[in-house]
């Protein structure tokens, strides 16, 4: 179990952030990911492994002023 955007989220076994994004059908070029409060550079997404209890935030651009 991890915390994804503030909510509990079930993950089966270890996976990378890139794999999580793929599972969520999210284009990694349009988001930023924070892993336990550290912002990940895009080229590290497939090298960063998510462990039980980790906190992940995925953000993108939305309409604003």
């Amino acid at each position, binding site marked *: 179990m991890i915390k*994804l*955007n*503030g909510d509990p989220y079930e993950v089966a076994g270890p996976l990378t952030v890139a794999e999580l994004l793929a599972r*969520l*059908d*999210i*284009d990694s070029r*349009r*988001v*930023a*990911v*924070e892993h336990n409060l550290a*912002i*990940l*550079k*895009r080229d590290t997404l497939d090298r960063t492994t998510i462990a039980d209890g980790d906190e992940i*935030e*995925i*953000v*993108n*651009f*939305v*309409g*604003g*002023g």
Partner: protein
Amino acid sequence: MDTFTIAGKTFSSRLIVGTGKYSSPAVMVQAHEASGAEMITVAVRRVNLDRTKESLLDYIDTSKYFLLPNTAGCYTADEAVRTARLGREVGLSNWVKLEVIGDEKTLFPDNEALLEATRVLVREGFVVLPYTNDDPVVCRKLEEAGAAAVMPLGAPIGSGLGIQNTNNIRIIREFARVPVIVDAGVGTASDAALAMELGADGVLMNTAIAGAQEPIAMAEAMKLAVRAGRLAYLSGRIPRKMYANASSPVEGLVGR
């Protein structure tokens, strides 16, 4: 060509527009087009995990528009810095419209936190455009902290009240050595023209266009108003006089 430059980047349009509150993406796209703006603001938020296919960026031609991520909704310097860093990672640009809000009802900025966040982000190499009070002293401090422009409010965000303190905007322009962009408070075209006549280098707005009954037409009105106001400012207006001063000659009147 009357261009203006922020942190080495030159723009020919002095109007900056937002992407919020539009009734549909199609209306937003057409309004952006009609506004002639080259820089548009976006917000940074958690992705909607239920509707991940929808993306604002599907509707924005990033080869045509320069994206300015904001830190709207942040109430502390830490939150704003965190949001700015995330925005940089999404958009791969180091520009940020820095907002640190101090009050929920008025959305007035928290000057102290804004200054603190500006210093941190400037140190990290950000081009910081802070949304600030219409206070010349705060604007000067932001400039000293390394802000690339200052963006004083004309009136509360989304209020449409127009420029409430024209004198302050004029003084801010006189003091500042960085571009001054009036951000927030514009309700209609004359407000935007007035901001430019006061000497502002640009105007940033969202609700005035997105919330208009005809957003696309209003976007064009704003484009023309910003241009008209700028030309009037450059042209040097006549002094205000108490009494009339005839435009037609007083000599040669028939029957005198």
